[in-house]
């Protein structure tokens, strides 16, 4: 059996190529001018979720009785808006200037950006919602006539959900750190995580 040599491999790879379908230049320029929209579309699901939370708790703030429920609803709305802003700020996006860098630097920078976003999810995603949620749950005690056990179970359920989100993101961040370490181990590298 004959192992493939360089020429054979390249001939094979380049055989039967259908070619690139060129975009008209005007279309290229139109897309270049609206590239930020692509990122916005990618995050659309998250933005819709933020909007839904704000609308629902806006209705609660108006309809529900009691200071704690109203205050909690307003704080949750503010927290959701903060999360949406952080999501837009932290999402890595195509950067024409960064794309000129060598491939390894670019890839590492993308991994570091993603790792920072996931590792700090407690700060920018979970913590902003905690004050409002705490006030809202406390407001539910008199409104829903909850006993101490019911209140404890309610708090525990929310705490478990938050803890689960935090742990899943920490695990994903750890996987990214392992990838970054593997990149750095391949060749000594300039820069810090």
């Amino acid at each position, binding site marked *: *059996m*004959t*192992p*493939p040599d360089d020429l*054979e*491999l*390249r001939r*094979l*790879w*380049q*055989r039967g*190529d*259908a*070619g*690139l*379908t*060129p*975009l008209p*230049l005007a279309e*290229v*320029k139109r*897309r*270049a001018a609206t*590239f930020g929209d692509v990122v916005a579309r*990618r995050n659309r699901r998250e933005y819709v979720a933020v909007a839904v939370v704000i609308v629902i708790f806006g209705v609660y703030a108006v309809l529900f009785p009691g200071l704690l429920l109203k205050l909690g609803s307003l704080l949750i709305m503010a927290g959701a808006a903060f999360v949406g802003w952080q999501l837009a700020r932290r999402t*890595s996006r*195509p*950067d*024409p*200037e*960064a*794309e*000129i*860098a*060598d*491939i*390894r*630097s*670019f*890839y*590492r*920078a*993308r991994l*570091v950006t*993603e790792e920072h976003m996931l590792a700090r999810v407690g700060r920018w995603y979970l913590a902003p919602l905690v004050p409002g949620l705490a006030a809202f749950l406390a407001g539910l005690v008199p409104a829903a006539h909850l006993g101490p056990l019911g209140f404890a179970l309610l708090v525990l359920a929310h705490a478990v959900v938050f803890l689960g989100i935090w742990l899943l993101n920490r695990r994903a961040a750890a996987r990214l750190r392992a*990838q970054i370490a*593997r*990149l750095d181990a*391949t*060749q000594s590298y*300039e*820069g810090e995580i």
Partner: protein
Amino acid sequence: MGMRHEFPEQAVDEDEQDRRFAEAITRFGPALARMARGYEADPDLRRDLEQDVQVALWQSFARFDGRCSLSSWVWRVAHNRATSHMIAHRRRNAPGWTSLDEIALADDAPSPHDTAASEQAMDLILSIIDRLDPPDRQILLLYLEGVSGADTAAITGVSADVVAARIHRFKSMLARRFAREGEFA
């Protein structure tokens, strides 16, 4: 990460930018299509990637100042945009990503038996490429396009020794697989 500040905001006027872009598409269009094949198996997503790469290239030529060859410039921008595509679709693709060092452990993965020899060989190549993480994938795709080791090192940012080692490993792996499956046409 310091490279991004080394480049001027707008090194050329728009006519020159358009001309460079047209030259790049003429010279590298087929190779860019093959690169996209190495990144995305889904035909619709691959077409999206090809179009994104064209947009990225046109944008990049606003800053092209000739400090590296057109070839190196095109490959850097195209692979970087393709890497962004990989990351954006990571939830669908990532479970299989690994490095060349680890992929050898899965050398017993099934290979197609019922296709023509050359198609079988191409399937083998793609089956390896599809499972690689971006750094190794880029080195192999550049090698398959005939880019020299020194140029690949400059494009990817790793040393020529690392490039040579990765290519050697890839070829050894292919040789073992071909030995088991038979020669290709």
